[in-house]
């Protein structure tokens, strides 16, 4: 082998070393700690931030909207349908709870930026009515956003969106409708919204205002299950109603309670909606009695949970019919849950000993995690005494 003559060839290693020495000798002696890419990543995903409640208003007779303004003046860009995670200090526990953002993305880009959530009263998701009782104007709270993949993705979804909503599951579509009306989201939105009575409609006025402003792009269909006075659609959100109001080649987006999800999922299959045309939000895990194959004989049992964090160990009680994450919260051990439905994996934990039942609803575990016993604490239930390891928070 000869490249340019023997002597030149064998001197190559010394030559490249000299080149590298020169390269480094010519380097600036001034440190440059700027990393604009990490700065952008941190702006898009700032993690925990402090917010102040700047407005509380009725969204319906049975729900309230809360406005949160950032103490540092920055709300990260989010997309309609994404959620915010709150860190609530209640007693000795720090609870994490996720809510879909009900305000529009453009409102977070105003001179005084904010985001809003809309919460139904007396829902056992949290300590019931914690927001209503504790979040007055001026209150401060820690939150992180945005999270979740429940948003319109133009590279995948049809521009004709049908939002199927139940109860407070309307909030992603309220966000979407407001963004469309603002002229910053170019889709056609049909909202089919199931409520019990018209007084239960959440964000009704805002939805109506957006539809009135954009009648060619936004259509509202309310469906009442138990409202004799209602002169619109009645009953449940059935196949007939969905087909009646669906435009051509729609992308269906569902957000609502688990029971309704099970129904809608069946309906989608019956209609023959292709998988890529049906999206659904990461709902929190349903009650155990609604989880398919949940071992019923476990209900009411209690186990011992040994929790390893670093070299530290705690032993706490855990109810068999509550997710491991709830046992941790009750004991005041922080666990960073986000979606609370098994999907997102933020509360990924390691099973060291014992047996768990993992809800098959929205099981978001990786194959290797399943094999090695890693689980998502928000959707796993003890069926024996457990020894687990979780991240130090």
């Amino acid at each position, binding site marked *: 082998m000869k490249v340019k003559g023997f002597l030149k060839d064998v001197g190559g290693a010394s030559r490249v070393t000299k080149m590298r020495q020169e390269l480094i000798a010519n380097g600036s002696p001034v440190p440059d700690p700027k990393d604009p890419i990490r700065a952008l990543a941190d702006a898009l995903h700032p993690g925990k931030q402090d917010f102040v409640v700047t407005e509380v208003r009725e969204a319906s007779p049975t729900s309230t909207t809360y406005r949160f303004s950032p103490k540092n003046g920055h709300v990260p860009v989010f997309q309609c349908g994404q959620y915010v995670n709150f860190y609530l200090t209640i007693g000795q526990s720090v609870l994490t709870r996720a809510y879909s953002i009900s305000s529009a993305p453009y409102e977070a880009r105003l001179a005084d930026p904010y985001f809003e959530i809309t919460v139904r009263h007396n829902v056992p998701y949290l300590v019931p009515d914690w927001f209503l009782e504790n979040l007055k104007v001026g209150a401060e709270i820690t939150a992180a956003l945005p999270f979740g993949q429940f948003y319109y993705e133009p590279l995948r979804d049809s521009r004709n969106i049908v939002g199927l909503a139940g109860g407070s599951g309307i909030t992603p579509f309220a966000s979407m409708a407001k963004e469309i009306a603002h002229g910053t989201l170019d889709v056609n939105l049909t909202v089919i919204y199931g409520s019990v009575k018209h007084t239960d409609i959440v964000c009704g006025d805002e939805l109506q205002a957006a539809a009135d402003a954009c009648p060619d792009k936004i259509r509202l269909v309310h469906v009442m299950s138990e409202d004799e006075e209602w002169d619109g659609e009645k009953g449940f959100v059935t196949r007939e109603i969905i087909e009646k109001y669906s435009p051509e080649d729609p992308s269906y987006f569902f957000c609502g309670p688990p029971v309704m999800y099970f129904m809608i999922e069946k309906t989608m299959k019956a209609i023959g909606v292709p998988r890529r045309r049906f999206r659904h939000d990461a709902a929190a895990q349903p009650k155990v009695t609604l989880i398919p194959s949940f071992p019923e004989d476990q209900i009411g049992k209690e186990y011992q949970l040994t929790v390893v964090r670093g070299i530290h160990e705690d032993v706490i009680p855990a109810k068999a019919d509550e997710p491991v994450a709830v046992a941790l919260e009750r004991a005041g051990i922080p666990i960073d849950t986000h979606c609370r439905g098994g999907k997102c994996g933020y509360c990924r934990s390691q099973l060291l000993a014992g047996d768990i039942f993992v809800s098959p609803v929205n099981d978001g575990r990786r194959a290797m995690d399943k*094999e090695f016993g890693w689980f998502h604490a928000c959707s796993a239930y003890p069926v024996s005494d457990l020894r687990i390891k979780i991240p130090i928070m």
Partner: protein
Amino acid sequence: MKFYKDHYDVVIIGGALAGLSAALQLQQKGITDILILEKHNLPGGLATSYVRNGIEIEATLHEMMSIGSKEDRLKVGVFFDECGVDIDWLKVPEAYRFVEPKKGIDITLHAGFETMANEIDAKYPGWGPKVLEFMQLCNTVYDSMNILSVTPMSKVQMLLKHPEFVKTAGYTATEVIDTFGFPQDIVDILSPYWIYVGNPLSTLPFTIYAFLMADYFRGGSYVPKKYSHEMSMKLQRKAEENGAQIEFCQEVEKILVKDGKVTGVRTKRGDVINCDYVISGAYPNKVYTQMIEPLSEVPAGAVKMVNGRRLSVTTASVMMVLDDTPENLGIKDYNIFSAGETMDTDEIWKQNQTTGPYKYLTSICLDLANPGATPEGMCQFSITNLPLVKGFLELKEEDYYDFKRKMASEMIAEYERVSGVNIRDHIVEIEVSTPVTIAHYVGAWKGSIYGFSHSIDDHAVARLQMKEQDHFIDGLEFAGAHAISGNGMGPAVTNGRAAAKAVIDDVANKKAAAEKAAAKKA
């Protein structure tokens, strides 16, 4: 509450492949008092996967090099075997299909030097033997590199035992390829892997190029059955079985240094952890400008080093789940490199300093190497380019999501144009990653994935020779794409082992010095 011991022998920053491999190498030599701190909530860094609506999607791995078959294990495969890390490797069916429409080139090459030489000969009759000769040169250089990277020897010895390596070490890939007199079409066909180091052939050291060619064509490449997360999880589990403590969600913010020597680290949470050695997965650029505490402990030479060297490429990738089988979609190949405009890597390099549209793409259909990787009736498919971070530096938060969609849309359009396959109407899930994604999940400096540029003026051979002068703080080693062997998941393992070896040697030297001093005193 106390989550950490008062002191560890070694703290490893980052539980990616390099960090985990460093731990395993240390453990093999009896250093077991190890703490690994990982920023994310899972191991592996970029060697990972994610789940969207119940479908697990490979995050980054195209093909793992240096594994080899069970019969002919290569360097990384041997190391995993020695450590008792048993990964379910699946062989990638072909090396690559290369498509360059403007020249009418469309050829598929398979592993095996003779096999690929014959495949080229079939299209360019008479050239097979010369191609084989070329591949054998690559292989000889490859063998030498594997020996020399762990066995120091004198220059004379090197010349006697490794003459081809010595004689090509000072040249670029182009300079050596040119001596073979191949027609340009064949040069193009032998060039696609350049993107796996992200440096144009005109300034890429031949040895690095030869390493890629020999490694991939010798034994083929592999993917783990359960995505690259399988590899990461099995390395983690073995490191833990061997006694290492691994903590997730712990970003190290500071490396504590006193009188030129590492004393410990401080995490974002505020934990201060004492140790004798730190192996840093964080880039030297970040370590020497942000992390060393106090910064006055950073020698001027360290700053000049990170400022003088150039960062290599980062990633722009579109990952999709498609709603049909590869067969029905018309996707026939695991791995296609497409040169939509030109195969002149200097020209592509210029394009890669922008945010697109990109015309040199690599596309992967995982299911063709790993049947069942995606639920029945679907498949996962990714399109990737490896551009420089330069084009991304001015991105604004407000424009970011629109930008990502535009970039992805252009990459999909280019793939569809070159392949004739319709992707757009079959997308079930789609995620787009950019340098910002990398920075978010693994915290790498400027979203880099490939460390420092593998260019002739920052040659791995020179890095090895300058190891001592690149070492600035006692007890601080580096393991990641930014270390001597550079980028890629195979080299990540090698880099981790090299960092461990530096620690092991230093421990031995200090022990010997102490014994000598004690003997003298006695």
